[in-house]
């Protein structure tokens, strides 16, 4: 895959040539391997960017400046060759194969470019082509399945939805578990900010709208590479925020171009989305109870739909009239309406243009991107506009300034979801099949038409139209800096950057909405500003012919400030006039969180003969979030790379390249903000079911003793990580295998340890928990077939991660990460992080079900471990076939294991709308013993209304039946692209152009019975594995066009 992405890059870069020069050189490039010509070889005049790529017959023709002396021929997988021009006008070259990736340069910590072979740890890159193919608004969705060790979960298929990323598992109990994102050296914010009254006593993550995580603001078209640093040794230089890995994003830059030509690149795509898998619903029985039809009943335990018909009466509840028994009406038969017709076809247009170029004095890159998305849920939209300028200016040969500014506007219209009586799926799936949600949602008097009359749940059309949240993000990510070559070997670099955004949101809830009957307005404004400054002095010298020495010292300052102001107005007077002045009561909240860190860091490296590489790093960091006097901490790392195939005696005939690498590191992490003191807090009193009361009450302000006891003796968290890897290339690099094994131990993890309320607190901040992640990552790449016109490349990545929480705190067996009273995600000692916790059927010590006297299973109210949400292993298989100008590639993504709580189905059983309730005469003899007698059960019970309503559902029953396997095999991406031939290109004046058609998630094979199991109720949060009326996922087709001039 890396070959492919680099190829794309080379094509893009190479094409920037052309000039009115004096001399033409032509020739053919062939492979020593098979004697065949090689298309796409980059031919560049040394020391310039003047160059071109060979055509499909391996032929190039290049105009070179008079003073050109040497041509450089390079191609991925081949040894780069320099050939003196020496007055020749025809230069044919035979390239020798090189180990794949051996001379590959990758971006590592602090943006330092290093040869992959010199690294003692694993780094994997994703190139721009891979990031834009699927036209995902959220660039994170484009790396899913493509990088070993990386797990990406998109929350749902709604426009603007969030995605959650982890690298090599979770490293924190209740803190952040997502990697650090660094764009051009500046860490950027990837928070998912929530809206809703901060103190309403309800968990506003489980029911609200789908918010974005802020990495969505990045324009994938601006990204040159994404480099994924996985292990501790790879990220050690970044310090305390790097415990979860680092994703380094390098944006595209202008290239110095002797011809003073401006390169223009245009890309345009349209993406069509449709809902993918939907939860199974019964279509046989009408609304009602006990077999009788009942209008407005919450249930669908009514008569068979086929036994009903409409009477044509004039009723506002249905244009067809009332439902009556067959024979009593006008003959218009009752029907089961297709609930999912509610969803529409989503369309996303993505257009982006960039201009770049440069001269010997400097370079520039300018881009504008526009993404406009219409989601699958009516009224749901997401928009993103991005403008970027970057460049550098050489003051002298040894000094240059550089800078970049990226302004982004993003936002959209978001629709209610999840555990929320105004949530779309809640009203949609609970409504009876005999009720047509589409036959109007609002009466003339402003009240709503829903299947339960004026109460219950919102008609999904009502909530989509009347309860929208709109957000507007204005964001600027920018940096300025300089590079100074003090001496030949000594370089000073400085860069200061800022990431600042405001996120302004407004939620309007119409009067008569079931969640807020009197209407509500929420005005919610978030402000975030991160500043980062890095000064780096680096030294590089070949001490002898065989020994190279590098040294780097750096100084980092970082500050993060966040502020939120929330205004809520309740009780509207004028319907649908959404201004705070139109509300009877208001509530205002504000919050702030600030932190700073400072650090010194160093990296020393020695290389011997391109064979043995050794590196040590150290970083000392200070953080304001730790107690004063105890806020300084040091962490070291060391890594070794040994290219044993460089040993003089090594036989390269089968194994062409071999490297062994190993590393060890200790990373630290600071405490969360304001964890060191115990405070009083604004009180709020409710219960799990209501918003409750808060203060000022009747004009009286109040404070209560805070729930969490702070800790003035906190120390930093520690992550000790060990990694060993083997990189092998066989058969002149036709086959490559890269294996990594890692063992990460987290100690002294800081968390709010839940404690007995009788202490006066519900939690106490402590350095208490430990856990580990052990895993294997395997990347297999090969070229099974390669002829002149045809090639077949395979890339397989495999990840197996085992996580176990080994300790939480004394006497604390588990802590909650989020969820509901009947099913939650928890960290449980002895289990993996993110386990599902809930209620089970009653069993004896031998695990035999204890049934009641009638033979029904019984609820055991004690909550226990129910399953592991983490997959056992994941695998991504990419096949790429190329025939002349055609490229076909497909990514098969396999997730094996990992459970999901299907809370949706567990509740739909109660209402009688779940597919499983369709057969109402089915019988079952439960396997178990009658508890009162101890006798083996032989009683047959009918799985009828009584069973689903009173015994087996999410409310009366237990969570156990809702735990389902959420593994999958999916065709995540399949893409066909065609590069236009030169003959056409020359007519339109383009240097290259390609058409592509890409399908996302076209095939999904899963045992999960709900929506697409790649889903997360609480979005980009640690509580993954919950499905409670989640919005469905999508499958899509993307048509794309890219032209370079």
């Amino acid at each position, binding site marked *: 895959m890396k070959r492919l992405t680099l190829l794309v890059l080379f094509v893009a870069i190479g094409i920037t040539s052309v000039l009115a020069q004096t001399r033409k050189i032509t020739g053919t490039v062939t492979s020593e391997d098979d004697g065949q010509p090689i298309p796409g070889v980059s031919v560049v005049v040394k020391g310039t960017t003047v160059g071109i790529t060979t055509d499909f017959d391996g032929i190039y023709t290049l105009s070179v400046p008079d003073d050109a002396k040497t041509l450089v021929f390079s191609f991925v997988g081949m040894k780069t060759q320099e050939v003196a021009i020496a007055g020749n006008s025809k230069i044919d070259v035979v390239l020798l194969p090189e180990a794949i990736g051996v001379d590959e340069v990758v971006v590592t910590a602090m943006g330092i470019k290093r040869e992959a072979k010199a690294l003692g740890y694993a780094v994997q890159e994703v190139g721009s082509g891979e990031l834009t193919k699927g036209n995902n608004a959220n660039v994170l969705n484009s790396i899913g399945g493509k990088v070993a060790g990386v797990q990406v979960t998109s929350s749902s298929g709604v426009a603007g939805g969030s995605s959650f990323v982890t690298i090599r598992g979770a490293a924190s109990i209740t803190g952040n578990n997502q990697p650090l994102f660094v764009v051009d050296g500046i860490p950027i914010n990837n928070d998912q900010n929530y809206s809703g009254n901060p103190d309403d006593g309800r968990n506003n993550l489980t029911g609200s709208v789908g918010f974005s995580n802020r990495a969505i603001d990045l324009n994938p078209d601006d990204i040159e590479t994404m480099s994924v640093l996985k292990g501790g040794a790879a990220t050690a230089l970044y310090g305390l925020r790097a415990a979860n890995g680092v994703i380094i994003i390098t944006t595209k830059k202008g290239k110095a171009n002797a011809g003073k030509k401006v390169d223009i690149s245009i890309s345009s795509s349209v993406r069509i989305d449709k809902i993918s898998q939907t939860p199974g619903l019964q279509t046989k029985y009408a609304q009602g109870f006990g077999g009788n039809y009942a209008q407005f009943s919450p249930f669908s335990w009514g008569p068979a739909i086929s036994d009903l018909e409409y009477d044509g009466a004039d009723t506002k509840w249905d244009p067809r009239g009332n439902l009556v028994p067959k024979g009593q009406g006008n003959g218009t038969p009752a029907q089961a309406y297709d609930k999912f017709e509610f969803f529409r076809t989503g369309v996303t247009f993505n257009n982006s243009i960039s201009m770049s170029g440069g001269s010997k004095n400097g370079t520039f890159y300018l881009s504008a991107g526009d993404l406009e998305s219409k989601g699958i849920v009516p009224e749901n939209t997401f928009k993103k506009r991005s403008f970027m300028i970057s460049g550098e200016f050489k003051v002298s040969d040894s000094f240059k300034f550089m800078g970049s500014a990226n302004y982004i506007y993003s936002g959209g219209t978001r629709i209610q979801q999840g555990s929320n*009586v105004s949530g779309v799926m809640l009203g949609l799936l609970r409504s009876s099949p005999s009720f047509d949600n589409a036959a109007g949602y609002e009466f003339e008097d402003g009240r709503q038409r829903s299947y*339960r009359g004026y109460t219950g749940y919102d008609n999904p059309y009502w909530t989509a139209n009347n309860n929208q949240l709109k957000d507007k993000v204005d964001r600027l990510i920018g940096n300025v800096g300089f590079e100074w070559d003090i001496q030949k070997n000594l370089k000073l670099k400085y860069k200061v950057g800022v990431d600042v955004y405001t996120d302004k949101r407004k939620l309007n809830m119409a009067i008569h909405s079931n969640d807020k009957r009197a209407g509500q307005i929420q005005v919610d404004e978030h402000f975030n500003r991160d500043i980062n400054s890095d000064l780096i002095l680096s030294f590089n010298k070949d001490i002898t012919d065989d020994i190279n020495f590098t040294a780097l010292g750096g100084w980092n300052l970082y500050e993060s400030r966040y502020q939120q102001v929330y205004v809520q107005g309740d009780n509207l007077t004028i319907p649908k006039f959404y201004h705070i002045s139109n509300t009877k*009561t208001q509530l205002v909240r504000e919050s702030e969180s600030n932190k700073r860190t400072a650090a010194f860091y160093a990296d020393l490296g020695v290389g011997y003969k391109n064979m043995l590489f050794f590196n040590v790093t150290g970083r000392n960091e200070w953080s304001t979030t730790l107690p004063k006097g105890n806020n300084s901490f040091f962490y070291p790392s060391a890594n070794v790379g040994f290219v044993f195939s460089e040993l003089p005696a090594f036989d390269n005939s089968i194994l062409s390249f071999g490297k062994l690498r190993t590393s060890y590191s200790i990373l630290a992490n600071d405490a969360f903000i304001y964890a060191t003191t115990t405070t009083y807090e604004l009180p709020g009193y409710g219960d799990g079911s209501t*918003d409750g009361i808060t203060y000022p009450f009747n004009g*009286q302000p109040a404070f209560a003793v805070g729930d969490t006891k702070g800790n003035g003796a906190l120390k930093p968290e520690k992550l000790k990580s060990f990694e060993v890897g083997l990189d092998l290339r066989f058969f002149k690099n036709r086959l490559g295998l890269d294996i990594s094994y890692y063992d990460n131990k987290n100690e002294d993890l800081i968390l709010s340890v839940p*404690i007995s309320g*009788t202490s006066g607190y519900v939690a106490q901040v402590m350095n208490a928990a430990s856990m580990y992640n052990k895993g294997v990552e395997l990347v297999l790449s090969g070229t099974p077939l390669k002829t002149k016109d045809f090639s077949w490349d395979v890339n397989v990545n495999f990840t197996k991660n085992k996580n176990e929480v080994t300790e939480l705190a004394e*006497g604390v067996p588990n802590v909650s990460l989020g969820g509901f009273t009947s099913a939650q995600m928890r960290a449980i000692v002895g289990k993996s992080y993110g386990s599902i916790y809930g209620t089970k059927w009653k069993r004896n010590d031998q695990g035999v079900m204890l049934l009641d006297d009638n033979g029904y299973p019984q609820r055991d109210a004690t909550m226990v471990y129910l399953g592991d949400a983490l997959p056992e292993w994941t695998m991504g298989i990419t096949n790429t076939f190329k025939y002349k100008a055609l490229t076909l590639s497909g990514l098969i993504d396999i997730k094996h294991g990992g459970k999901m709580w299907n809370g949706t189905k567990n509740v739909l059983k109660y209402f009688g709308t779940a597919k499983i309730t369709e057969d109402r005469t089915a019988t079952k003899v439960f396997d178990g013993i009658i508890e009162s007698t101890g006798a083996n059960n032989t009683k047959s019970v009918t799985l009828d209304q009584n069973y689903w309503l009173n015994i087996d559902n999410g409310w009366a029953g237990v969570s156990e039946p809702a735990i389902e396997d959420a593994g999958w095999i999916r065709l995540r991406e399949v893409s066909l692209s065609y590069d236009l031939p030169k003959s056409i290109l020359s007519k339109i004046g383009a240097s290259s152009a390609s058409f592509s058609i890409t399908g996302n998630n076209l095939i999904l094979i899963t045992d999960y019975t709900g929506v697409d199991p790649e889903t997360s109720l609480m979005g980009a949060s640690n509580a993954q594995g919950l499905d409670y009326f989640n919005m469905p996922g999508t499958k899509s087709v993307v048509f794309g066009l890219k032209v370079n001039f």
Partner: protein
Amino acid sequence: MKKIYIVILVLLTVGFTSCEEWIDTDLNNDPNNPTKVPVSLILPSAQGGISYSAGGELSRYTGYWVQHINGVANHAARHETYGTNEADVENLWRYYTYAGTLMDLRRIIDQATAEGATHYAGVGKVLMAYKLGVTTDMWGDVPYSDAFKGDDGNITATYQTQEQIYSELFGLLDGAISDLGAASSVSSPGEDDLMYAGDLDKWKKAAYALKARFNIHLSKVNGDAAYSAALSAIPNAFSSNADDLTFQFGTAKAENAPLFQYEDQRTGYIGGVGKYLVDLMKNNGDQDPRLPVYAAPNGDGEYVGLEPGATSKDGKSFIGAMFMKADALVNLVTYAEIKFIEAEANFSKSSPDKAAAAAAYNDAVKASLAKYNVSNAEWEGRNAAETAATITLEKIIKAKYIATFLQEETFSDWRRHSSIFNLSLATGAKTSAIPRRLPYPQSEREYNNANMPQGLTITDRVWWDKN
């Protein structure tokens, strides 16, 4: 060029020297929450917390079980059929009782005592006794003297027997009476007191009222001593409805009453009023004037209660508007309750004073009608005109059951007099009997298991609920 280098050198020098300052800041001092507050700001918090739970979860759970009201849908239907489990009481115990109201009250008492704000300490002790009393009545053995010590590193409080807790309650009330009578206090409650607006005499009466309540709770274990102790407290307790310990919720969204919020946000979970209550209030055709206050008529203009365990509210009476409105009043301890205690104690003591019992009964019923503005001399002439010859314990207890509508106190009365009520088990009951306590919460099982009493089910009795 040189100029640039000079600028860089200057910047670096300035930068390095300010590094210390960059970190050595008060940036980690929480700007959102204070570290010290006066007791006058904690008191309204404790009062709101007590009242929201009393009118919310406690009222609903016990209301279903004593058949004042019915839960017909979703989790309410589960509580209706006694499926209440350890997760259901998690918030109530942890956030709203121990780490909530009780911790706030502990802080008020300690801080006020240390500062010499004796009157605040007195109010704090009355409320502590009230809330601790409710807590032990619901759960039995609970922590108190070893609780609230998280600041000292004790995060697993030991439990005291209910008998010991009761002696703590009386100690708190004696302390409160003494504190409230103190001649001087550095500061005294005023408008910040959301219950009595700083009226210390009423607080003192409330202390005596609670003495009466807690003593009558011990009727099955202490017998005569319980009755005489209750009777000796009553003269100093409430003397009219105006003395009632109540909490007024408001129309502003953040001040809405708990039952209103529940119906507004969980519409349809509650089905309406219980059949037992409605039938009792129909009073063999001589309808109690409070029935139209407690219940709303059904579509046919009739009052029809729900059978326990009913799953449909169709054609049934919902709870009356006075209890369902946004600015409803939540009753904690009332004058009527005290009068019923007086009636019961006089009736049941070993040397009964039935005339006194009848008089207290009549006062109690009239007070209750007056409270709901439905005084009716005619009806009272027939139903609140008991004499020594006609008064019975059943009349007293059932009339109290009506007067304490939606108060968790009814659950204590039912437990002391189950045989008088003879409530039928809910259809679809998940236990073989009506619960007699709440389960201990999940967090106690998980984080304080060594101290938590083991092996109890919700049908087991608390100490004073002797069989």
